[in-house]
C-alpha cells in the first residue's frame, strides 16, 4: 500500500539538463516530428541513425539509461508478440526457411522484418518517454494549452482542457491517500481485499470505489465553489503568471531535430 504513495506521476525525472530547460512546446513539437519520422524510415540505416540521435538526446538529458530501459518493461510483451508474428508471417510467400514448427514456418525475411519492426517500436517508446522524463506534468499541460490556443477559434476548448489536466494532476496524490484510508477502514471491518478469484476481488472493490466516487463528487462541488469565490469565470480575460518564452536554445534544438530528421529520411531513400 505504501507503493501507492511512492508512485511518481508521468515518470518525470528532475534534472538540470539542457533538454529539461527547453520550452515544453519545443519538446512536444519535436516529439511529434520524431514520431512521424520513425514511421517513415525505410530500412536499418535510417533507423540506426535515428537510434543514434535518440541515444544522444538521452545522454544529454542526464536521465539514467537504466531508467529508460526499464521504461520498456510495460511493453515487453507487445514487443515479443510483434517479433514472433513477423518471424512467422512477415516474410511473404517463398522466403528462405529457417525452421518449421508444425504448420508455422519461420523465414529469414520474417526475422529481418521482425527485428526491424521491433526496433522501430522500441525507438517509438523511448522517444515519447523522453518527453515525459524531461518535462513535468505541469509544463506539459501549459505547453499543450499554448499550442492549442490558436485553435480556440475553431472550437477547441484549450483552456478548459488544460485546467482539467492541472486539477487532475493536483488531486492524484490526494485521491491516492484517500483510497488508502478507505481501504484500511474497510479492512478494519473485515473486508478481504487480496484473496479470492477475479470476481470476488472485483466485488470487493465496491466498498472502496463507492465512497471514493462520492467523495470525488463532493470535492468537485466544493472546488467549483472555491474557484468561483476567487473570481473564476472560464478562460476569457484570464492572464497567466507563468509565461512560456521561446529562447535561443529552443531555436537551436528545433534546427537540430529538423536536420536529424531530414538526414534519416534522406539516408532511407536510397
Amino acid at each position, binding site marked *: 500500500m505504501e507503493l501507492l504513495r511512492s508512485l511518481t506521476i508521468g515518470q518525470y525525472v528532475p534534472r538540470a539538463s539542457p533538454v529539461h530547460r527547453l520550452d515544453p512546446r519545443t519538446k512536444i513539437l519535436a516529439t511529434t516530428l520524431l514520431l512521424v519520422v520513425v514511421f517513415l524510415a525505410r530500412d536499418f540505416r535510417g533507423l540506426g541513425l535515428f537510434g543514434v540521435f535518440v541515444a544522444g538526446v538521452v545522454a544529454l538529458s542526464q536521465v539514467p539509461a537504466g531508467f529508460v530501459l526499464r521504461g520498456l518493461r510495460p511493453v515487453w510483451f507487445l514487443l515479443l508478440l510483434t517479433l514472433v508474428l513477423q518471424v512467422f508471417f512477415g516474410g511473404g510467400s517463398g522466403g528462405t526457411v529457417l525452421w518449421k514448427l508444425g504448420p508455422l514456418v519461420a523465414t529469414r525475411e520474417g526475422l529481418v522484418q521482425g527485428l526491424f519492426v521491433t526496433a522501430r517500436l522500441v525507438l517509438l517508446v523511448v522517444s515519447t518517454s523522453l518527453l515525459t522524463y524531461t518535462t513535468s506534468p505541469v509544463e506539459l499541460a501549459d505547453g499543450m494549452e499554448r499550442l492549442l490556443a490558436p485553435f480556440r477559434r475553431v472550437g477547441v476548448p484549450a483552456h478548459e482542457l488544460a485546467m482539467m489536466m492541472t486539477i487532475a494532476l493536483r488531486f492524484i496524490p490526494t485521491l491516492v491517500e484517500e483510497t488508502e*484510508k*478507505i481501504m*484500511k477502514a474497510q479492512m*478494519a*471491518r473485515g473486508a478481504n481485499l487480496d484473496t479470492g478469484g477475479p470476481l470476488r476481488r472485483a466485488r470487493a472493490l465496491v466498498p472502496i470505489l463507492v*465512497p471514493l466516487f*462520492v467523495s470525488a463528487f463532493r470535492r468537485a462541488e466544493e472546488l467549483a465553489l472555491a474557484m468561483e469565490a476567487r473570481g473564476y469565470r472560464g478562460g476569457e480575460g484570464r492572464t497567466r503568471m507563468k509565461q512560456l518564452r521561446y529562447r535561443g536554445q529552443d531555436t537551436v534544438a528545433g534546427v537540430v531535430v529538423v536536420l536529424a530528421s531530414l538526414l534519416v529520411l534522406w539516408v532511407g531513400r536510397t
Partner: protein
Amino acid sequence: MVCEGLVHVYLRGTPFESVALRGVDLAVRRGECLGLVGPTGSGKSTLVQHFNGLLRPTEGRVVVDGVEVRPGSPAVRDVRRKVGLLFQYPEHQLFEATVFDDVAFGPRNLGLDPEEVAERVRESLGWVGLDPDRFGPRSPFSLSGGEMRRVAIAGVLAMRPQVLVLDEPTAGLDPAGRREILGRIRELHRKARLTVVLISHSMDDVARLCQRVVVLHQGRVFLDAPVREAFAQADRLRSIGLDVPRATDVLLRLRAAGLPVRCDRLTVEEACEEIVRVLQGGQGWSSSGA
C-alpha cells in the same frame, strides 16, 4: 494488548523514508479507558493501526489477548474482530445502499448467518441511538453528518469487538454533537464493558472519560500515567506543545498566586468544588461583591 519495542518505519529504503515509531512499549488493560494524546506527527495513528494488524511492525511485536499479531496471516481476521478501529471522519467509508446493509458489512464479512447479522445490526443501531426501523432502510447518504458518523460507529460495533479504538471521534462536530458522542462512548465503556482507546486533541475530553493517559512525542512514549498524575505535570506537557484542561490551568494559576488549591482536579465541576472549598475555608465571603 501489549506492544513491545514497537518500531515502524514508513517507506524504508526510499527517499521518502520516515520513522514514525521509535520503540514504543505499551500495555492496555482489559476494561480500561485509555487516552492517547500527542502533538501531530507523534505517531498516534500509526500506533493504533498496529493493534488490528493493518500495519506490520518494522521491529518489535504486538500481542493481543496473548496472541501475537501477524499481518498477512489468517489469524489477523480474528484480531480485527476483537479490536474495532474507527478512523477519523468515519462517515467517509459508508457505501451501501441502505443503512442496514452498511452496518451489516462487518458481520457479513465474519461469515455469520442472516439472523445473527440482523440481530447485531439492530443492536448496534440501538447502541448509537438510531431507531433500526426508521433508519435501517434509508440511504446513508441521505442522513446528516452526525447521523452518518453514528452509522459508521454502529458498523464497527456490529463486529462485537472487545476493544474499541477511536481516532478523534468528535472531529468536526458541534458542541452538542460532541457531548452526544462522548456520552455514548462512556456508556459503551461502562455498560458494555468495552476497553476503549481514545485518540484526542482535546485534553478536556480525555480528562472526562479516561483513567489513564499515554502521551506520545516523536514516536516515543513521553508519559504513561493515571490521568490525574499526567495532567498535574503541566510544564512537561507544555514543553512538547500540549496543554492541560483549562479548568486545571486556572487551578495552577491560583496555586502559583498562593492559594492552596489541589491541582489534580480536571473537570469544570471538580475545579469549581475545589475553588469553592478553598475560598470558603475562610468563612464564606462578602456578598457585596469584589
